[in-house]
């Protein structure tokens, strides 16, 4: 209800209350006996304001206890008991004073003020309790009915000052009072909060409401007595006496309704409790799913909640990985036992990826070591964990005693299974993304190693043009090429391809670089060098790893080229318009570590002629694939080499790159691509003359 000066009043409730109490104190001392209507009216207004502000002040406290309606009811009950106690004491100690006007003195006045203030405080507090309860869990609009009840309370309060005699009864006050009672009855049905109480509290409130409605009724009945206390109240303020009566009947009716409501709610209390628990645990679970990435922790929560909510003795969760069942979590059952039972179920073929299965009375015999244990389940439910129509495992719930699972319990087991499936999927996705991240960073490391290993520039001289290019694949392929300036004006060169991919290939590559770099300074013969390299690698290469390589030496003075091939791609010698494959014998490094390697390896020697072109490459070129999975192959490479349609080797290099990239056209590159071109420019003759 919106009243004027709401803000001011709500801020200074206590001050207003104290002020009006002081006011009534002074007023009562000045006018101990009121007979004139105007004085009574003023008196009533002051009393009303005391009640009103008192109500506002106590609302402060009752609002704090909104979450525990039981304690509110208990508070009201205690005050009510005090009122009853006062009434009872006073009527047994004092008789009604026959002639009030003569016996009113200062002591009486103080006494009456004290008593009345207790009454006012109690009424205000009880009423604010009712108000809190009324608006507790109210969903529908009901303010109007409540407001009109308050209005009639007020009307009844003020009409009570109209003199009420036997021959001329106060019908107005009576009418308002009756209407108030009707409105009270209507408003008292707002007791939905009872439904939300746990079973224990329902029982408790049932008991309290019995006592309370009796007390309220007694107080109400006693307010009609010709007792000293009633006389005192009426004399103090007729409106207060009527309001007291109204509140008492309100209490009696309200508590009566609370009693019946909680009584009717009792049979369903257990089911309601379980539903509430299920709802809150599902909520907790969905929170967990988004917060906890550790599947084990989630699995433990799921099994323990399943056991709790579904009233089962034990529950366990089995996950399925590559058709393999794995017990993830157990609740109230041994790990070994749960595992055995699951295996028996799996071997009997009862585990269905499609259906939720429930057994009533199921006996399982399990063997643990030499011991046979029998499990007699009165109910056992198995729910598949399904995500995107794929089964991820099973959730088991078992009960040893009592009856089978009811529909609700079955549904919640299924719900928990669904949650478990989602959690499992989540955990898997997260794991995958972590793995992917790890791979990416590993790839970056591998690529960095590779770039550091490859030479920054190609060594060219008057008689020899050298060009090289390298295109890394997404996954590092292990290609390597290098040049070594040797004594006697000789140039050593190597091209190699390490088997496998990624970081392991990159590490072998680094080792290979070290070997070639040091051996090139020591051994002149390519064949001897490769044999030595193979021996060194025998100590470090994994069984399944190998390295193919071509190592050669060019004499920059004479044009004498000698080289050996260890399992690598054919070498091209382009002379004029002819491209010739040269394949000297030799097996890959790391394939064999005995004499077979040495015996098979052949060294080739060529005396280069002017404009001779030596082409070295890795299988990344010949095996480059287009969208139809066709390989680039030797022929396409040879065609470019033989075309003669290039100015110099840089131009040739660009042509080869372009040809390969237009061939693969958007198809991803699976392997590193490396190309090394050496062009001999005849002794002392400037190039381009021939």
């Amino acid at each position, binding site marked *: 209800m919106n009243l004027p000066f709401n803000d001011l009043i709500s801020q200074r409730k206590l001050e207003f209350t104290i002020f009006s109490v002081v006011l009534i104190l002074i007023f009562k001392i000045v006018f101990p006996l009121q007979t004139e209507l105007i004085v009574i009216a003023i008196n009533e207004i002051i009393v009303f304001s005391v009640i009103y502000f008192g109500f506002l002040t106590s609302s402060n406290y009752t609002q704090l206890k909104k979450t525990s309606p039981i304690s509110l009811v208990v508070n009201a009950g205690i005050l009510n008991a005090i009122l009853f106690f006062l009434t009872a004491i006073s009527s047994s100690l004092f008789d009604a004073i026959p002639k009030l006007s003569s016996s009113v003195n200062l002591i009486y006045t103080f006494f009456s003020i004290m008593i009345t203030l207790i009454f006012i405080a109690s009424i205000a507090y009880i009423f604010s309790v009712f108000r809190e309860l009324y608006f507790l869990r109210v969903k529908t609009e009901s303010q109007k009915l409540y407001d009109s009840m308050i209005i009639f309370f007020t009307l009844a309060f003020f009409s009570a000052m109209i003199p009420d005699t036997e021959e001329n009864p106060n019908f107005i006050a009576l009418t308002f009072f009756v209407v108030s009672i009707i409105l009270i009855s209507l408003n008292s049905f707002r007791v939905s909060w009872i439904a939300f109480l746990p079973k224990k509290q329902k029982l408790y409130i049932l008991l309290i409401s019995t006592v309370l409605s009796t007390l309220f009724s007694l107080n109400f009945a006693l307010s009609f007595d010709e007792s000293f206390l009633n006389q005192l109240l009426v004399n103090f303020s007729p409106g207060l006496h009527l309001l007291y009566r109204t509140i008492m009947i309100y209490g009696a009716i309200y508590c009566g309704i609370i009693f019946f409501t909680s009584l009717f709610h009792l049979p369903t209390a257990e089911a309601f409790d379980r539903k509430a628990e299920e709802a809150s645990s599902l909520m907790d679970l969905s929170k967990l799913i988004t917060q906890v990435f550790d599947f084990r922790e989630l699995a433990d929560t799921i099994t323990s909640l399943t056991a709790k909510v579904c009233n089962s003795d034990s529950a366990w969760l089995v996950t399925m990985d590559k058709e393999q069942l794995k017990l993830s979590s157990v609740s109230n059952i041994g790990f070994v036992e749960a595992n055995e039972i699951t295996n028996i179920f799996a071997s009997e073929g009862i585990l269905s990826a499609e259906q939720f299965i429930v057994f009533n009375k199921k006996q399982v015999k399990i063997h643990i070591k030499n011991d046979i244990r029998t499990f007699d389940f009165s109910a056992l439910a198995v729910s598949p964990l399904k995500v995107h129509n794929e089964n991820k495992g099973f959730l088991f719930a078992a009960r040893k005693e009592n009856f089978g699972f009811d529909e609700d319990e079955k549904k919640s087991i299924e719900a928990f299974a669904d949650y478990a499936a989602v959690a499992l999927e989540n955990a898997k996705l997260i794991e995958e993304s972590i793995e992917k991240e790890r791979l990416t960073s590993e790839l970056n490391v591998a690529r960095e190693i590779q770039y550091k290993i490859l030479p920054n520039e190609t060594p060219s001289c008057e008689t020899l043009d050298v060009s090289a290019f390298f295109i890394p694949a997404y*996954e590092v392929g292990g290609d390597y090429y290098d040049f070594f300036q040797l004594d006697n004006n000789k140039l050593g060169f190597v091209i190699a*391809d*390490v*088997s*496998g*991919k990624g970081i392991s290939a990159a590490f072998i590559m680094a080792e290979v670089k070290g070997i070639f770099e040091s051996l090139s300074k020591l051994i002149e013969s390519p064949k001897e060098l490769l044999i030595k390299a193979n021996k060194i690698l025998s100590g470090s290469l*994994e*069984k*399944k*790893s*190998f390295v*193919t390589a071509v190592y050669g030496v060019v004499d920059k003075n004479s044009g004498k080229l000698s080289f050996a091939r*260890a*399992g*690598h*791609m*054919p070498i091209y010698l382009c002379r004029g318009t002819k491209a010739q494959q040269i*394949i000297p*014998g*030799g*097996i*890959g490094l*790391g*394939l*064999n570590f005995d004499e*077979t390697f040495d015996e*098979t390896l052949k060294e080739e020697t060529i005396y280069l002629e002017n404009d001779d072109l030596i082409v070295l490459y890795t*299988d990344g070129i010949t*095996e480059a694939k287009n969208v139809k*999975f066709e*390989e680039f192959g030797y022929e396409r490479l040879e065609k470019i080499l033989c075309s003669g349609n290039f100015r110099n080797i840089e131009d040739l290099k660009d042509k080869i790159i372009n040809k390969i990239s237009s061939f693969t056209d958007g198809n991803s590159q*699976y*392997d590193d691509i490396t190309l090394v071109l050496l062009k001999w420019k005849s002794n002392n003759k400037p190039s381009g003359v021939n």
Partner: protein
Amino acid sequence: MADFNVSTREVGSIKIIDLKGYLDAHTAPDLEREFNKLIDSHNYKVVVNFDELKYISSAGLGVFMAYVETMRENSGDIKFSNMQNDVFNIFDLLGFPVLYEFFKDETEAVNKFNQTERS
């Protein structure tokens, strides 16, 4: 990439591994698993039939290198058969024919095993 399939059959006491599709770094573990199974069951005489294999990468070649020693130590071997030309070229360039036995036909490889057993 395209599919890869590996399956094992038996001809007498000799195991035949049939390869199909593309054998590369990603599919090589499937073949490794197959070899591990053979070793676990003490089968050391293996013929690998390449009839339907379209492509083999260096990682695929590595699988044979990793297991051949075990087979030979247990008086068995890995022999290759029915290889298509382009696949054989890869083996050939690497020098595999020096170290392994290649046969045009699977039965030749099986016979070779049986001969050595008799002799």
